[in-house]
């Protein structure tokens, strides 16, 4: 196994009519618009180049890629010269050789000759080009140089050494074209030209978001990973899938032995096309963090210290406890939680263990607290519980409606693609209580920002629909062909009622009616309309209703069933789509088939060799209620931290405390582990084989590049538990689990590791009807048959502001941290976000005498915590905002147990609160910290 090296064709792929030309005596046919450089590369001829790379637009500055064209004077740059029919091109001649050598000589005259000790030695395009042009001497010895320029080590992950810079602008162009941040520029002129982060600032203090695109684009050692400087060049690599957000970026894990040197975004990754963000690219140090637990541990009571035991003892103890509990309290007294951070195969096994081994359907997953309304709403209206498009679809969108999502922070690689499309002219509508970055950032400005009051999504979407219907902007032909016309008519009559007009709903949403009208007209008439949404839609008491209303709006305007349109839930965790697909919900088998469906149950009873329950099991909040009630006593939690991530912390911890055997399988002693009796150390995504499914239903391989530090991959641990329970499992490799999934689940019928090896990835449904998968769903017809319009009345949440709690708290996440922070807090990403802050509008701050950075108490009817204030007009008056990345803050002690009517997805986004001065951490926080310290003690032998 060697290093995977993608071919760099120098310039981008073109899509014109075929053109035939001759290069160095060989005939080649390429699309019109292709550069001579790319045409030559397709013949296997590498024309020397430095400023060109095929992820960027051609620039033509380095003058190394010159060629001769018969009948044309001069030596044009091959990167900026398009092919023409009948051209005869020469890439090598005495004149070209001399020119290139002269250019290289000038470059090298201002470049340190320290190749042997340079970190890029062996991976330096400048070095390669010096060799390619046959440079043997540099005659310019005493001129001015930049060799004494100072290094910038401010970024925790990469170094900037301007002494090695050749000012090719690749980094600047990558930041602009690929990432869309425009943090870099070439400052100065002539000899003084230099790469400048911001206004000649350090990288860390500039606008740089540390995505790594500049590092990847740099042809020298000017921008280079510190891990490469420290460890040397990698010697082999494997393609795997990021374990952070739902974009599912493909990376090359570049290794030395079993040591990860760096993660480099894979150009052929079909979700990310070679781009990355700060988390996937750099924040993998948690995998070897000193706090990682690698030995199983047990204890009798959660106040006891942990005792390290063998795997056999831990598994034996767990199963003995579960059997004891079931014998005493009944078969339905235990259950399991699957992880959206684990693989498809691992989640499949956990739900199989629960259904076949525990003998009940008490299995749930963290999608309960994020996108369960998506599953419900899209299945009801369209027929399947998933987004309709692939990410490439955004390249054909004309109008993009982003509602309740913050892609630049939550799904940054998709955000870069979106911003690129917006720079090309697509229009943007943002519906969000906060002025998120997309509303206005370099070269991107939303046509409309609809800053709605938290909790009024349904009123807003109904108002948009009201305009579509009353102004006859709907697509009648589409509706008549694809949907039930009678249901549409009934719905249209409903939304046309004056109470749904923008003017009437303005009192609820606080969004000016004129803005809503203009936004609706733009979405309905602006060409391909695409909706992207996130947890700002789902995490409400009307989360499912909003998803349904979004589907209504998309169907009414004919924006489903082709590229460029659609309904796109931006999934939070890397495998939240997959964990839902794999039957993690208590009412559904894999493939979203209800447990009461006899034919489906027969398939699994036959495959698994046991009788299965036809009754839905407990959802996570119901498990905790039942625990407090006294009928639910044992829980196997794989890779979730419900004590930090789930709402109403007091209720969660009371439920956990009421159980007799809580088993946590994780990398670290997380907050939930403080209430656990068994700790089974888990493995990282670098230590396992399997697959993840991203937000676009794309199934991608996860490949093991190092031995699990804990001794086992997570699926092996579940298998050991099953066998000890007396339910036999004997998988030798996750590919066998996928084969079983394919045998039992129609939408996965064609999926196999062999297919994934061949295609790189595949989007479900993948079966006989779609052997290579389904990038766009509902083409030609909805999965359920006719698209279903459903009436969605706005119902105000029970969570009301009042004199005691006059402000509305909404929660979210930021770019550098991920979910509960268990991974990212154990990386250098903490330099960007050391603590959760409360964003508060200047007016609300002034009313309370709060200054920027002050410690404040945040209090709701559920609880209180303390954190520091950040005064900003990104939030509207009356609205405050915070993140939930840090356990010390524990923002979820504030959130309540109110939830979505259909799915019990918590209402994280609306909590009535009061903010007041504080002297520091609250009494509860101090107790929580003490409890954590006590419960994390490990007994030494």
């Amino acid at each position, binding site marked *: 196994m060697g290093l995977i090296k993608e071919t760099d064709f120098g310039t981008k792929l073109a899509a014109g009519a075929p053109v035939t030309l001759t290069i160095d005596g060989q005939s080649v046919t390429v699309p019109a618009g292709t550069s001579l450089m790319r045409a030559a590369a397709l013949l296997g001829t590498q024309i020397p180049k430095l400023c060109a790379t095929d992820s960027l637009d051609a620039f033509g500055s380095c003058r190394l890629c010159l060629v001769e064209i018969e009948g044309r004077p001069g030596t044009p740059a091959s990167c900026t010269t398009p092919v023409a029919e009948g051209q005869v091109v020469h890439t090598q001649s005495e004149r070209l050789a001399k020119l290139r050598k002269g250019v290289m000589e000038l470059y090298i005259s201002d470049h340190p000759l320290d190749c042997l000790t340079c970190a890029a030695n062996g991976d330096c395009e400048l070095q390669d080009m010096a060799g390619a042009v046959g440079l043997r001497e540099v005659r310019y010895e005493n001129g001015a140089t930049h060799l004494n320029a100072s290094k910038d080590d401010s970024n925790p992950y990469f170094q900037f050494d301007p002494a090695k810079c050749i000012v090719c602008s690749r980094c600047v162009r990558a930041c602009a074209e690929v990432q869309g941040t425009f943090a870099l520029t070439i400052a100065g002129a002539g000899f003084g030209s230099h790469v400048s982060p911001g206004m000649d600032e350090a990288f860390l203090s500039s606008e740089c978001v540390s995505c790594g695109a500049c590092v990847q684009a740099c042809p020298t050692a000017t921008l280079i990973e510190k891990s490469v400087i420290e460890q040397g060049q990698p010697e082999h690599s494997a393609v795997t899938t990021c374990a952070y957000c739902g974009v599912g970026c493909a990376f090359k894990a570049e290794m030395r032995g079993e040591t990860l040197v760096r993660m480099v975004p894979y150009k052929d990754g079909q979700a990310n096309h070679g781009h990355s963000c700060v988390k996937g690219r750099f924040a993998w140090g948690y995998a070897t963090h000193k706090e990682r637990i690698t030995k199983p541990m047990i204890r009798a*009571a*959660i*106040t006891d210290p942990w005792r390290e035991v063998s795997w056999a003892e831990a598994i034996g103890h767990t199963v003995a406890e579960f059997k004891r509990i079931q014998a*005493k309290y009944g078969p*339905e007294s235990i259950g399991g939680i699957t992880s959206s951070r684990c693989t498809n195969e691992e989640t499949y096994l956990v739900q199989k263990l629960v259904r076949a081994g525990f003998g009940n*359907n*008490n299995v749930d997953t963290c999608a309960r607290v994020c996108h369960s309304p998506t599953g419900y709403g899209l299945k009801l209206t369209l027929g399947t519980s998933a987004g309709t498009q692939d990410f490439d679809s955004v390249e054909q969108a004309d109008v993009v409606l982003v509602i309740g999502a913050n892609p630049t922070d939550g799904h940054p690689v998709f955000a870069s693609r979106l911003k690129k499309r917006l720079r090309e002219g697509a229009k943007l509508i943002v519906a969000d209580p906060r002025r998120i970055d997309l509303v206005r950032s370099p070269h991107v400005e939303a046509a409309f920002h609809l800053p709605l009051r938290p909790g009024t999504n349904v009123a807003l979407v109904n108002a948009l629909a009201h305009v579509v219907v009353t102004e006859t902007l709907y697509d009648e032909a589409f509706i008549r062909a694809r949907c039930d016309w009678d249901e549409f008519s009934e719905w249209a009559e*409903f939304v046309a009622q004056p109470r749904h007009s923008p003017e009437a709903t303005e009192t609820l949403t606080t969004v000016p009616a004129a803005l809503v009208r203009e936004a609706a007209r733009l979405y309905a008439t602006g060409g391909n309309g695409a909706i992207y949404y996130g947890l700002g839609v789902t995490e409400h*008491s009307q989360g*499912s*209703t909003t998803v349904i209303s979004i589907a209504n709006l998309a169907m009414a305007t004919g924006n489903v069933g082709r590229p460029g349109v659609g309904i796109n839930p931006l999934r939070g965790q890397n495998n939240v789509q997959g964990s839902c697909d794999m039957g993690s919900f*208590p*009412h559904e088998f894999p493939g979203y088939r*209800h447990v*009461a469906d006899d034919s489906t149950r027969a398939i699994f009873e036959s495959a698994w060799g046991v009788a299965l329950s036809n*009754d*839905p*099991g*407990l*959802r996570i909040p*119901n498990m905790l*209620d*039942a625990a*407090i*009630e*006294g*009928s639910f*006593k044992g829980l196997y939690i794989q890779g979730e931290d419900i004590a930090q991530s789930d709402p109403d912390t007091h209720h969660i911890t*009371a439920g956990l*405390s*009421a159980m*007799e055997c809580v088993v946590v399988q994780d990398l670290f002693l997380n907050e939930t582990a403080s*209430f656990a009796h068994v700790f089974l150390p888990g493995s990282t995504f670098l230590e396992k084989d399997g697959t993840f499914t991203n937000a676009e239903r794309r199934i991608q391989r996860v490949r093991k590049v190092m031995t699990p530090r804990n001794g086992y991959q997570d699926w092996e641990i579940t298998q050991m538990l099953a066998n000890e329970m007396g339910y036999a499992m004997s998988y030798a490799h996750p590919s066998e689990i996928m084969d079983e999934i394919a045998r039992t689940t129609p939408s996965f019928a064609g999926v196999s590791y062999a297919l994934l090896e061949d295609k790189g990835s595949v989007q479900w449904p993948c079966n006989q009807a779609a052997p290579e998968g389904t990038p766009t769903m509902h083409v030609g017809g909805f999965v359920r048959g006719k698209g279903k319009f459903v*009436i969605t*009345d706005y*119902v105000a949440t*029970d969570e009301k502001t009042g004199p005691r709690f006059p402000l509305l708290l909404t929660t979210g996440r930021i770019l550098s941290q991920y979910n509960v922070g268990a991974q990212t807090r154990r990386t250098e990403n903490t330099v960007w976000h050391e603590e959760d802050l409360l964003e508060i509008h200047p007016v609300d701050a002034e009313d309370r005498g709060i200054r920027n950075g002050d410690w404040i108490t945040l209090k709701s009817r559920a609880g209180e915590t303390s954190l520091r204030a950040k005064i900003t007009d990104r939030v509207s008056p009356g609205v405050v905002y915070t993140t939930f990345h840090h356990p010390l803050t524990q923002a979820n002690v504030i959130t309540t*147990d*109110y*939830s979505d*009517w*259909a*799915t*019990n997805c918590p209402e994280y986004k609306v909590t009535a609160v009061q903010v007041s001065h504080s002297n520091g951490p609250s009494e509860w926080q101090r107790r929580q910290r003490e409890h954590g310290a006590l419960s994390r003690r490990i007994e030494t032998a």
Partner: protein
Amino acid sequence: MSPEQRSPEQASPETAPPEKLIRMANQISTFFQHHPEAEAEIASHINAFWEKRMRRQILAHLAAGGAGLNERVRTALRQVKPG
């Protein structure tokens, strides 16, 4: 006595307050209020998504008078399976 000090035999006798289930059932009812067969839809939703302990609990609450439950829910619960 804190929960963590409680022995298995001393499991809380407390039953979950019905308020949460009452609110959930009424929420479901509100969503289906425009449906021509609202009661059947409400019952179908509860049968499909609520575990039998929850169904039994809400049915027991109805049998005890059903305070707080709206009329549609009361009617719908006649079609809910106790498990």
